[in-house]
């Protein structure tokens, strides 16, 4: 099922939670809404579900206007960050809820409901918990039950709000892989909200990066990582080295010193140079366009992470780089640095 969101505006008082947001989600996609807290991602999800209403704009699900219908008529599965399981019902009754509240004309008979619930509990591999109450389950189990409950109504789309936000790191990792394999099994169009870039890049087919109520970039995980469209995306996704530079006449200057890189068509004026930690090539002193003293080295696995105080600019600029271990760095050593891949964005303030 496809979802289309057009020109959505939502204000809380004078604060614009969503500022003219457009988004298209294709059939069977697994889309991540990624952004820091307060970026409007959860609000957007709730508007699609019908739990919140926009001040302006359109939402269509499968070409059909959704804003004319309340949440109970949209046939949308919603999974809450804190699960929102019905605490007075058993796991079985929680999953059966959506089937039991259907209008009498379409409601299935008890045997069909039981079979369907059994099937869903099997799907989330928790059939042995059917008679427990939510308070007796672990966080990961609760989240899987919440998912089974949302799937019970055979939703047209599945919306997940920070589905793994309240879980510890290990369970989170397991559930991520599990969600991805579940999605390839049932193939329902899904959107999930997360502030965890690793989660978004690992699970989703496409990532929507949001900030301050606007969409900054939409692309595949590889796209948003390798070709960030804005300074915000570059800084938010992956670790970046950010240096304040000046662009003038096609050359890039750091603290007045020209760097041996091209401006790549960046507009003249105060700018920011973004380099990934592992895209900073190291060499002997005197080579490369930057020079710095190694202050501290930590080695783990295939890389060494070095803290480097750049020469010039009063030695106050300290960057962290990731270098391969073919050449072990020593603390105190002076090295040359050259950005292999980089992006220049205009400084915003």
């Amino acid at each position, binding site marked *: 099922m496809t979802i289309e969101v057009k020109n959505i505006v939502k204000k809380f008082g004078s604060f614009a939670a969503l500022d003219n947001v457009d988004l298209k989600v294709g059939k069977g996609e697994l889309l991540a809404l990624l952004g820091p807290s307060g970026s409007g991602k959860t609000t957007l999800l709730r508007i699609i579900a019908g739990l919140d209403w926009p001040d302006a704009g359109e939402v269509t699900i499968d070409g059909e206007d959704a804003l004319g219908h309340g*949440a109970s008529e949209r046939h949308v599965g919603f999974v809450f960050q804190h*699960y*929102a399981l019905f605490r007075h019902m058993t796991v079985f009754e929680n999953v059966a809820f959506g089937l039991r*509240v259907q209008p009498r004309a379409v409601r299935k008979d008890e045997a069909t409901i039981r079979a369907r619930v059994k099937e869903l509990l099997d799907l989330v591999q928790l059939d042995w918990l059917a008679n427990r109450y939510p308070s007796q389950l672990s966080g990961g189990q609760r989240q899987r039950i919440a998912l089974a409950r949302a799937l*019970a109504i055979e939703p047209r789309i599945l919306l997940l709000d920070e589905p793994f936000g*309240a879980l510890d790191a290990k369970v989170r990792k397991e559930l991520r892989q599990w969600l991805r394999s579940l999605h390839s099994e049932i193939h329902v169009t899904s959107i999930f909200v997360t502030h965890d870039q690793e989660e978004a890049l690992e699970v989703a087919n496409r990532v929507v990066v949001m900030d301050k109520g606007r969409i900054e970039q939409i692309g595949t995980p590889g796209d948003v990582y390798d070709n960030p469209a804005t300074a915000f995306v570059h800084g938010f996704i992956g670790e970046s080295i950010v240096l304040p530079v000046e662009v003038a006449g096609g050359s890039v200057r750091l603290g007045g010193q020209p760097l041996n890189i091209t401006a790549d068509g960046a507009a003249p004026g105060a700018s920011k140079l973004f380099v990934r930690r592992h895209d900073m090539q190291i060499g002997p002193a005197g080579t490369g366009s930057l020079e710095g003293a190694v202050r501290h080295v930590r080695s783990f696995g295939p890389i060494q992470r070095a803290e480097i105080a750049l020469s010039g600019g009063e030695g106050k600029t300290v960057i962290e780089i990731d270098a391969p271990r073919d050449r072990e760095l020593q603390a105190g050593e002076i090295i040359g640095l050259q950005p292999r891949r980089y992006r220049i964005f205009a400084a915003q303030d």
Partner: protein
Amino acid sequence: MSTQTSFVTPAARLQAYASTADLAVSPPSARKVSDRARQAAASRDLRSEPGPIRFIIIALALSFLTIFVVLPLVVVFASAFSKGINAYFAALAEPEALSAIKLTLLVAAISVSLNLVFGVIAAWAIAKFDFSGKTFLITLIDLPFSVSPVISGLVFVLLFGAQGYWGTWLQAHDIHILFAVPGIALATIFVTFPFVARSLIPLMQEQGTQEEEAAISLGASGLQTFFRVTLPNIKWGLLYGVLLCNARAMGEFGAVSVVSGHIRGETNTMPLLVEILYNEYQFVASFAIASLLAMLALITLVVKTVLEQRLDEGQTPEGRSE
């Protein structure tokens, strides 16, 4: 029990602690657990008061309770039965007494059931929705608690009395509110309104709206959501509020006294009858009725304790214990 332990020396109690811990736990882990128990007991000793002071404080509290709560209760029952059991039941079988009991039950039934509905609606609106004037509404709900019951009764006299705002209109249409059951019910509803709403608001606020949102997104209608999700979640709190509301409704004196008119056998509730009989020196009859109210209080107390336990059990919502 608590007075007993306060006499035991810290060292002895420490040992008692350790030995019970040893008994309760299987051998391999026993030492570890008892160590922890010992530490817990030791740190507790540091925080608590010395024995004599504890004894004095507890003795003070108990004697206060005895003088102000237990003694009056004993007096009520002693006076009621002072002329023997037969006199007691004869006093209760008087037509006036029976009429007062019936009226009290009727008024309580009306006011509790109406306040149940209004209280749930008010609590629902306050806890689950944001709207302007919410603080004002919460203050309004508390108003009956802060106003003297006599004033509460007087308000209705001013509204419905012969010289009141709607008095002439009511007289012209032969509608009796004051000095009749409707007036007594209205005054009681006013006085007891806060109980249900007040016991539900904090509970509903703590539970939030997520379960309701989940129910709606699963296709439930508003009514289905209320009866299948909201109501089961608040049932113990609701019963608690109803219980307190009922106790106050049956025991209300001030507001009812103003609007009742004291028509014998017609508009006297139990508390009013107790006063009348007492003023007429019919002590046995007066205390017999009073003993019924006292029993109501005792039953209320027991049920309240049970409900509070249930509420505490229900207070461990999923999501908190990770």
